[in-house]
Structure formats: C-alpha cells, structure tokens
C-alpha cells in the first residue's frame, strides 16, 4: 500500500482519544513522535497492523466522542495507527450520520423528525428551536441541533437526543421534547431529568402471560443475581445439557423464524452455520433497529439486558461461534450502558469468557456501536461496518452462513429473535409452538406509536388481530390508517383491522409485519407529508451503491414533492412515474432498502387512495 499521510497533526486530545483505544504507538511508523534507531531499520505495518482495521469504527467514535467531530489530523493519526489508507478512512467517516468531518460544537442535539415524532409535533419543536437557537446546524449558544431520523423513542414522541463530546461524553434523552427542554439539555446534558424506566414503554409490564417481556419492569437490569432469581441462565444450562445439535433441533421444532422482517427459519440458519467446515464461526446480534417506528429491541435491552447476553451465548454455543458481536445502533446510550455493565458482570462471574459456566465452552461478546446509518441493519452491511469498511451491503450469494463477517461463516440474528430462544429452551419446543399459529409460532412484539392512548411495546401471541392490538393501545376515534411494518411496510385501512398479525396473514392481506411497527394515524394526519417523510428517509439512508436506489429514491422524493398538493388527473403523470421507478427499485436494487423503498408509498396510493 502506498500510504501517504498529510502534514496535519492530531491535537493532544485527539491523540489521547485514539491512544486510549489502541494503546500508545510503538514506533514512529505508527505515529510516535520520535524516530528511534530501530525505527530507521525496521518498518512496522503489514498484515498484522491491517488486521486491526476493524478498530476503525471504534476509533472514529473515540475521536468523535472526545472532540465532537473528526479533524484531518485526528483521522490521519487514527489511519496511521491502523495502517488504513486515509482516503478509505475518510470514506468510512463520511458514511455515518453521527460523525462530522467539519468543525462543529461539542454538543449536538438530534431532534427526531421521523414518522411518530412528526405525528407527535416535532415540526413545532424544530420551528421553535429555529426561532430561539438558530437554524439547524448553526452553533447558537455553543450547541447545534439537527433534525434526525427515528431515534427509537417513538412511544414518547417527539424525541431528542443530546450528545456532548468530552473526556467523559454525556448524553441526555429528552422525550417528550419541547424546545425549552431541548435547549436545557443542550446547555447542561448532565442535569437533564432521568429517563423513565424501560418498563414505562411497556403498558403490559408486570402482567401475567408475557413471554419475551416478562422480566421487563420486574428485574433490576443491573443485577445478575436478580436476573438469575427470575429464571436467568436456566436456558443456557438446558442448552449445555442438550448439546449444540440438540439446541438447533429445539429451535427448529419450535418453528422460530427471524423477527427482523425476512422471517427466515432460525433453526435452519443456525444449522447451516454450524455445519460449515470453515472456521472460526461468528455470531452477530443485529441490534441496529433503525426502522422508523421500531423501539422494541431498545426496551428489551434496557429492561432485561442479561436475557440478550444469555441468548447470544446459547446461539454461539449452537452455531459453534466463540465470539459474538453485538452491533448496537449508536443512538441508544442507555442500552449501551446497561449492556456494557451486564457483559462485564457476566464475564466476571464466569457466564462469559474462556469457560462459560464451567462447561468448557469459550464465548465472549463485544459491543460495536453503530454511528447513524439505517443501512447497517442489513445483515451484510453490518459485516462491512464491523470490519471498518463503509456500511454498504454485499451482494448475495454468497450468503452469510457461508461467508459472513471476516469472510467466515456467520449467523446473524436480531435481538427479538435471539431472546425467543430462552423460552424455547425452558418450555421445550412443543410447548412453545402451541402459542401462535401453525407457521407463525410464539409471541410477537409490536411497537405501537402515533395517535393512540397508550403507545409502547406490546407482546401478543401470533394470530391476534390488529384490532385486538389497537384495543389494548387505545385507538383514536377517527382512524385514518395504520402503517404496518414501518417505512418498508404498508398501510392498512380502518376496514381491514381484522387482519391476523401473522407472517402469512399479513402477506395474504398484501402487507407485512416487518419489524413489528404499528404506526397509527388519525384523520388529522396529512398523508402526503408522511409519504414525503418516508421518501426522504430512504433517500437519506440509501448507501449510494446501486443506481436504482441511489437515484431512484431521489426521483421518488421529487415526485412526491410535486404531488404534495395535487390530486386526480393532475397527479396521474407523477403516479405513473412513481410506479415505473418503484418497479425498477424493487426489481433491480442490491439490497432490501432499495427493494422496499416504494412499498409504503405504493400502498398509500393503492389502498388509501392517496392523491385521488
């Protein structure tokens, strides 16, 4: 590699931030100030250094956390330490929305303007901030605010997240947000009021009959002993008794399918990974829930963090992986804190590490923080992101079970899917499969937001109808539509509420469960605005790799802009255009983002008669 680094030097702070992650540099080749005699005769770098490329994303976080943005000097120093070509380092840094490569104040407030928050009045918050603090991006009173895609706090919409860089970075969540509270959090994030407990997002908390949510609000999320007192680690013990093949058999017979949207049978994925001759195997937990309107994984991780750790250990055991990466979206500070604590405690008590529970099985978990990129929830984009590349999806085949993280067999599961493994092992497959329907077994978490009386995460057995779910949450008097499955999902009309919430039932009704988003819109909503926001979201989040999505999402947004105030014959031309572009996005995009970017808009046109 022709590594060439410019003249820009890191500041002391930046150097300290990188060194805190990587240790001090060992030679001038790695960026130490003084050239020693040995340095003159011996070059360091090569393969060994390049293998540390996966530390690029943590390194970028280190810089951004410390200073608030990533300077040339800081980035060059990080790249030198990791033997990453600076052009590539720059390409990665500019991929993520939470990083900036231009100076900005140490405090940035992200104000969510996505679906649920838009329905909850985020536009007004932004307008007031504009008036009091200045336009988005400007640094009035030492802090900048910027509009943000969904922060996963939809049950408390509108939401904002303040992040202050520094030696100990501080975060504050403001939800529900008012301009005043946002400004307060920006000036003193450490003084912001405490968040309500995770259980507050679970209206059903502490009631009987819950499976996945049963411990949320019941256990102390910081206490391993409390977790064990509430049935924790019984599933892992059972897993060890069954052996890896036995675990896979239970999971297969339970009929568990992935909850991330694709509904792929988990047992099949695990056994395909376990059988690969190539080693090592990896486990990746996809905790990058960035689908607008989704927050169930956050609630699980905040309310019952050990459950995810135990479930990942089971999955690692079954698939023959000794290392699990927990890829957590960057906008979840509390989940990050709780999981970090839980992993440390589990490790110190022998529930992670070289010899898990004295069973001779080695397994450990590393948390990787995302940095604001919806696309990194795509299973192959996660790999690139962890590896220190741009979070662009890979084309398939080859599939992850064959060539995944670091080119090795990898099982990727999202949080909700993994947590389902615990009841399967505890109750046994037949008991588990008795809940739900024939092809959708078990229970499902739904994220209900929008105009309902009790927004939050609900757990229902598969097969309950949308109407039953809405009854629990308190539907609006004048229901206009329900967006099911999130921005990549579809709209359901008020006369279709009897659709059973199962994978097959929603498919038959021409929509999808997706990740479990149930966004409720009442008559007051301006549908064209919501559609525009969906289009804007996809345009913003497209990785830019393939043409149908990179340009198609822009053309879709443009057409919806034109359509905003038009109906009938005046709208026909643009609707035809949308259909044509939408079809090509669906057919020819590399990954699910582009393939689904037109779903919600199409369903609004066809099922809700938008622009009629």
């Amino acid at each position: 590699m022709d590594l060439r680094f410019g003249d820009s030097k890191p500041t002391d702070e930046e150097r300290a931030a990188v060194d805190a992650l990587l240790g001090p540099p060992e030679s001038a080749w790695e960026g130490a100030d003084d050239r020693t005699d040995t340095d003159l005769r011996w070059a360091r770098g090569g393969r060994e250094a390049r293998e540390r490329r996966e530390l690029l994303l943590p390194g970028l976080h280190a810089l951004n956390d410390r200073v608030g943005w990533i300077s040339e000097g800081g980035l060059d120093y990080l790249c030198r330490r990791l033997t990453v070509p600076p052009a590539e380092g720059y390409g990665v840094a500019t991929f993520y929305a939470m990083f900036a490569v231009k100076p900005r104040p140490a405090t940035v407030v992200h104000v969510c303007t996505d679906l649920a928050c838009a329905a909850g009045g985020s536009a007004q918050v932004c307008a007031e901030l504009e008036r009091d603090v200045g336009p988005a991006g400007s640094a009035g009173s030492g802090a900048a605010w910027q509009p943000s895609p969904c922060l996963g706090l939809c049950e408390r919409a509108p939401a904002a997240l303040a992040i202050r860089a520094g030696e100990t970075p501080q975060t504050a969540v403001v939800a529900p947000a008012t301009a005043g509270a946002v400004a307060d959090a920006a000036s003193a994030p450490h003084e912001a009021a405490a968040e309500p407990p995770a259980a507050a997002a679970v209206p059903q908390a502490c009631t009987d009959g819950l499976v996945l949510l049963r411990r949320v609000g019941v256990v102390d999320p910081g206490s391993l002993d409390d977790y064990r007192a509430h049935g924790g680690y019984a599933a892992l013990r059972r897993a060890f008794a069954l052996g890896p093949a036995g675990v896979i058999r239970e999971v297969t017979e339970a009929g568990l399918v992935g909850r991330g949207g694709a509904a792929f049978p988990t047992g099949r994925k695990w056994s395909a990974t376990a059988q690969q001759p190539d080693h090592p195997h990896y486990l990746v937990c996809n905790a990058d829930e960035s689908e607008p309107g989704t927050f169930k994984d956050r609630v699980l991780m905040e309310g019952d963090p050990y459950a995810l750790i135990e479930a990942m250990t089971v999955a690692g055991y079954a698939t023959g992986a000794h290392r699990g990466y927990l890829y957590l979206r960057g906008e979840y500070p509390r989940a990050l804190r709780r999981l970090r604590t839980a992993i440390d405690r589990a490790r110190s008590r022998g529930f992670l590490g070289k010899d898990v529970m004295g069973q001779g099985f080695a397994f450990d978990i590393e948390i990787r923080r995302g940095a604001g990129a919806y696309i990194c929830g795509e299973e192959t984009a996660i790999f690139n992101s962890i590896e220190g590349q741009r979070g662009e999806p890979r084309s398939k085949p080859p599939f992850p079970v064959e060539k995944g993280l670091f080119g090795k067999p990898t099982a990727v599961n999202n949080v909700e899917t993994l947590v389902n493994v615990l009841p399967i092992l505890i109750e046994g497959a037949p008991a588990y499969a008795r809940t739900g329907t024939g092809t959708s077994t078990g229970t499902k978490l739904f994220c209900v937001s929008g105009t309902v009386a009790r927004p939050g995460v609900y757990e229902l057995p598969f097969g309950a109808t949308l109407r039953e779910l809405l009854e629990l949450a308190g539907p609006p008097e004048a229901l206009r539509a329900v967006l099911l499955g999130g921005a990549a999902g579809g709209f359901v009309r008020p006369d279709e509420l009897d659709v059973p919430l199962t994978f097959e039932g929603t498919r038959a009704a021409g929509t999808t469960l997706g990740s479990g988003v149930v966004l409720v819109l009442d008559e007051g909503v301006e549908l064209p605005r919501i559609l525009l926001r969906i289009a804007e979201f996809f345009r913003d989040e497209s990785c830019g790799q393939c043409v149908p999505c990179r340009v198609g999402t822009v053309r879709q947004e443009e057409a919806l802009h034109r359509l905003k105030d038009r109906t009938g014959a005046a709208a026909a031309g643009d609707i035809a255009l949308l259909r044509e572009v939408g079809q090509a996005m669906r057919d020819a995009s590399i990954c699910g983002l582009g393939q689904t970017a037109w779903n919600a808009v199409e369903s609004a046109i066809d099922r809700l008669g938008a622009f009629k």
Partner: protein
Amino acid sequence: MTAIPLRPPRRLVDLTLDGEPVRAPEGSTLLDACRAAGKDVPTLCQGDTLTPKNACRVCVVEVEGARTLAPACSRRVEQGMEVRTDTERARHSRKVVLELLASSTDMSTTPRAAEWIEEYGAEPERFGADAARVDEEPKVDNDLYVRDYDKCILCYKCVDACGEQWQNTFAIAVAGRGFDARISTEHDVPLTDSACVYCGNCIEVCPTGALSFKTEFDMREAGTWDEAAQTETTTVCAYCGVGCNLTLHVQENEIVKVTSPHDNPVTHGNLCIKGRFGYQHVQNHAQNRD
C-alpha cells in the same frame, strides 16, 4: 481477465438462456454465458479486468424462481438455472436505470450510452428540468489527468483499480453516502496532495470518461478531439525491463493518450506513470521546442 493461460479444466454446468440450453464453465458469470451465446447484455460497471461491483444494474436478467432480478455480470451460473435476458421486466429495469443515470449525470462520453438509451426507449428528460443532478465542476488539479465527476456513475472501478485489485495505492475511495456519495481523495484534497502515483490505471478502467487525460479534456473543450481521426499503435514501453504494452492514440501526429491492451497476461492494461504519461519526449520535434 480474458487471457489467463493454463487454467485447470473446469466442469461445465447446464443452464438455459432464453429457453435455449447452453453449457458454461463452472464459476463463470451469467454475462460470460450470455456473451458466449452471442447475446448483447448492456453493462456499465462491469470491467474485463476487474471484479465487478454490480452497482449499476443495467445488466439485470431474470432468473427463474428469484424474487428480484440478478446482475448478469456477477451472478455465477448454476446447474439447471433458467435465465431470461430480454423479458419485459428486465428491459424495464434497464430502461429506468438508464433514465436515472442519464438524468443525473452527463453521459455524453459514455460509449454506447446513447445507443442503449435509444434501444430501451429511455427518456431521461421525463423527470423534469428540476431533477437533481450530480452537478460537479471538473477537478483540474494536475497536468496529467482531469476528474470530471459530473460524468461519474459511481461504478467503483477506479477505486478498485487504485486499491486492492491492482495498484494498491488507495488514493481514492467513495466518500459520503446516497446521492451525495462521490469518489474522493482523503479530506477531498487535490490529487497532488493525495497518495496518487499517477499510474492512470483509473482512467484506463473508467467507463464514462469521467476520468480523462488532460490532453483529451483540453481538446474536447477546444472542440478539436476527433476520435475518428486517431490511429492506435500498440508498441512496447521502453522505460524499464517490465516491457509493458502501450497503445499510442495519435491524432495529427501527436500522441493524445496512452492506453494498454487489457488482454496482456502480465499487465492487464495497467501501466505506471512513465508508460502512461511520459510520452512527451517522443514528440519533442524541433518545431515544438521553445
């Protein structure tokens, strides 16, 4: 990489292309199979010397049983595959992709673009005059070549040629994301401050003319670029012992650019700065001095 000699024999797999049974060596792509069968599938980001990134999606074909279309340039043949190259669906995607590209970038120097736009009935104008465009000014920051990213379709070829697939210089990468993604040096510095070694291998692979010799760029600006009047002579570079093949493009007795044959088994079309740009001494005629 068409001409790598001495490959171990490969098994043949059976598939059908538009209903016709064909056999293709295991590991070859659908595009290889199509071309062997004499089918003209359009491609932009595919390159004969690079592993395609399958980013442009103009080569999509329909594979029986698949939910989405498959990029012919990258999808490997499989036993029993039934492939249709010219269906309504595939043609529709190609048409729209061409429209999306041509409405956002300048494709005037992309070979065959006009022909395909015509063939697929693409109408890039229909997105209206306000359709967002890449809108980049040409970057002229050195005497050897110009980067005119207004013509860039983001095929990643230059990045791959500069990076791990050939040159190992890694002077450029994709920065930004979505519609704002651009090919960029680190911190977007001028080429002269970057790691670029001016091998020009990126120009060699660029399918759109976004990267071009300064000579070509200047002549196009002046309206004197005339490909029809050019002759091409392939010779051997005399600078060093590697002995790369050079193809000299000559117009009115002046070398206007230098390429290299892609089927050369040693260099695959790659050169170094001397072979690519060091041709002035050849035309240091008396009348050109001082």
